[in-house]
């Protein structure tokens, strides 16, 4: 078609099964269906994009009508877009040990109920458990005759326990989500753990704010890597000038022992067999031994920014792809957990994550732990609650002085541009000096 430099179609159909149990009551359980497509056309000056609900695959005249509509839209754009060359190809989707579709919803409900019931505790006033199973069948085709088709199933559960005493209300929250198949069996310990944490937090102290040494557990350190570094390395933000990492390639911004990686190809919750532009997924070492090494890219930002590889385009069904993280982690070092606590000596140990946020242009991040412990003479002592960390990316990374030898990954979801995609974050235990800790406690 005249003027069309490139087009692609990403059509996703599938179903979502959910179960919601609240204090022993099955509030809702069932299956819903979706069918969404996005067609992108690159005209001389930019992208024209059609988002279509209930798309019926078509060829010839009908498909050309879609291309013409997208072309008309693209004519109002003004940017000369060049797509970088990138290898195509698709990884195999990992085998599921047990396909959730082979388990009846009645059995799923019964297993979820066991987890929810395990959160019973004399101080727990509310228990809530959710199961979600999302099956996506993705079909991709582009004007260069690349075609991919795959099916992914992500499933898992959350359990929340709320403890209350004399007007003090606290919560414990556990979750397990996986691409490896059905994971509701033998998980009652997660319900019990949520209840125990909620009850323990009723007696926890309130953290005092200020600068101190902090040990971050693998889950929170993973969120740190995601918020403090991952977003600022996204090629679209770098291109727009909305990242403090712009122009910092080759500069040392962290300690020698710090290497941060994003890899969509590893079999964690953020796995993609191929990216949302049909590009082969590849590992990117964002920070290598403390030095800014590479950015995350799609084909467009690879071409305009350079320094990195494409393969990091991701999208929700029916949405245009954005440059996104997938599985982001701090590489393991060689310190033992004991060495990290001893080196910290006096400070705070932060565990679990209630999420975080970053302003990548300003280089400011904030995230919140689920709970923590004071560290006194290298030992964990008093439990503390409602404790957060904030800081400036370019100053804070120098403060990571020790990385443990025990990296683990945690599943989650990341929001950007109105789209939420599955990710995993991970790290070993890390020691962060001069951490700015927020809490409402005062001396």
């Amino acid at each position, binding site marked *: 078609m005249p003027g069309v430099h490139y087009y692609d179609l990403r059509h996703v159909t599938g179903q979502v099964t959910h179960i919601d149990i609240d204090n022993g009551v099955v509030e809702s359980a069932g*299956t*819903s269906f979706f069918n969404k497509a996005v067609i992108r056309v690159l005209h001389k000056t930019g992208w024209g994009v059609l988002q279509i609900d209930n798309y019926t695959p078509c060829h010839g005249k009908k498909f050309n009508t879609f291309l013409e509509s997208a072309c008309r839209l693209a004519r109002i*754009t003004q940017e000369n877009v060049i797509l970088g060359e990138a290898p195509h190809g698709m990884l195999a989707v990992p085998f599921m040990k047990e396909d959730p579709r082979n388990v009846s919803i009645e059995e799923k409900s019964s297993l979820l109920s066991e987890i929810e019931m395990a959160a019973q505790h004399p101080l727990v006033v509310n228990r809530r458990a959710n199961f979600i199973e999302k099956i996506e069948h993705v079909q991709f085709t582009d004007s260069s005759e690349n075609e991919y088709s795959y099916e992914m199933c992500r499933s898992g559960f959350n359990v929340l326990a709320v403890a209350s005493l004399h007007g003090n209300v606290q919560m414990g929250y556990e979750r397990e989500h996986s691409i490896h198949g059905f994971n509701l069996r033998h998980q009652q310990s997660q319900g019990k753990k949520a209840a125990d944490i909620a009850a323990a937090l009723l007696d926890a102290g309130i953290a005092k704010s200020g600068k101190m040494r902090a040990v971050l557990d693998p889950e929170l350190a993973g969120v740190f890597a995601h918020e403090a570094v991952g977003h600022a390395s996204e090629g679209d933000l770098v291109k727009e000038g909305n990242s403090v990492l712009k122009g910092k390639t080759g500069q040392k911004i962290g300690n020698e022992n710090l290497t941060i990686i994003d890899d969509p190809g590893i079999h964690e919750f953020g796995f993609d067999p191929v990216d949302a532009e049909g590009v082969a997924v590849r590992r990117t070492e964002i920070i290598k031994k403390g030095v800014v090494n590479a950015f995350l890219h799609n084909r467009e930002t690879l071409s305009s920014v350079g320094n990195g590889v494409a393969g990091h385009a991701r999208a929700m069904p029916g949405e245009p792809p954005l440059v996104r993280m997938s599985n982001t982690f701090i590489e393991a070092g060689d310190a033992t957990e004991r060495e990290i606590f001893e080196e910290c000596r006096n400070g705070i140990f932060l565990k679990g994550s209630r999420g*975080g946020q970053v302003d990548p242009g300003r280089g400011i991040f904030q995230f919140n732990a689920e709970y923590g412990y004071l560290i006194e003479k290298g030992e964990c002592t008093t439990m503390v609650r409602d404790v957060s960390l904030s800081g400036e990316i370019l100053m804070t990374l120098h403060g990571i002085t020790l990385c443990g030898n025990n990296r683990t990954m945690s599943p989650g979801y990341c929001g950007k541009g109105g789209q939420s995609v599955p990710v995993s974050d991970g790290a070993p235990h890390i020691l962060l000096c001069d951490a700015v800790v927020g809490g*409402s406690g005062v001396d």
Partner: protein
Amino acid sequence: MRWWVAVAWIDKLIREAQKTVDDVEVFYVKGTSVSADLKQKKVALATTSEDCGLGIRTIHEGRIGSSSTNNVSQWLECLNAAIASGKLATPQDWGGLPDIVQLSRTSLSFDASIRIEPLVVIDLIEKMLEGAAEHPAEVTAGTASLSSATVTLANSKGVRYSDRHTGVSLSLEAIHEQSTGYEFDHSCFFDNVDPVSVGEMATFFAMESDNGKDVATGEYDILLSPLAYGELLGNVFIPALSGRNVHAGRSRLAQSQGETVTDSQISMYDDPLLIKANGSVRWDAEGTPTRRVDFINEGILETFAYDLKTAYRFGKTSTASAIRGGFGGLPSIGHHNFVVDGKRNEVSDERVVYIHNVVGAHTANPMSGEFSVELSNAFWMEGGEFDVPIRSAMLSGNVFDMHQNISGLSKESRAIGSMILPSVKINKQRIIGK
């Protein structure tokens, strides 16, 4: 074609459902939108969308089922999935879906003058850039979008409601050195947004926040902009007013009905019938006719929000607070236009720390109300004028407790999503310097 002819399949669906279940509700939305995205000062991407979605809720012997799809030709499969889903649900007391009521057919949030066309969004973009040029900060990204949707609700009690909504939404991001600025505007009426001002304020905040100074840790009188206040209110305080959370033990306000929960000058209410307000509707997501709900009157907590399901279960009456985030899932408790009101006064005459936005409010503890957030575009302010910017600091405290220390509300209010909020002055809040 008249709308009810176009959706004749809904009547068929209801008749089919009535063979098997006591009650059925059909929620159908069909819409279109157009948007343009700026990358720096150039439009890089233009998008249109054609959306449709069907949500079905069935109730049989107190068991509630649901399913959804965006392929309406498969309504029968969707209905069967909803009925199957209901068989798994725990039965509860159920007093029936609402009967039909004669309501005005005039939409409160539909602007017939809005044209969903690419050239209109380009005009909005150009006006934002015109405003942005007032200050020498660099534009990094921005969006303008227009949307229109028809929402249809029908049930087995004879309800056949249909309503139209429009929307115009703008945002712009800017940077100067390492200082960022962000501004947005949105409305259901085209003339209610000011694209020039959006652009001007985004570059203003980026410029004005540059060369910030540190602030010492301590207690300060603060002035939260509607945006910053809305982040804390929406993430913590408003969920605690949900009847569902109250009865489930997930609300700190559960035992506080009739008690003082905020400063005595503060009132909070949901007014779904405001003309030209973003969340205005004459019926809620279950077809209950909407009305004003006064949650807090001069500091006293009066009532909580209920949908039908929660009301029937706990012997209450629906406050017509059912909303749907989309066509999928079940209706849930929310609000339409949540208003914070009270005596208005000059809030920036005396020296305060003005906080335009916060980073990380969603990480607050929604049960206890404890929070620590990073400040964004914070300044010293006196006599209504911006003074020295604050480079980086945290605000830490408790959302519930800080409402007891509110000392003033600004004269102007602003729509933040479905909230209508003033700037709020709060005394003695803890700021952690760096």
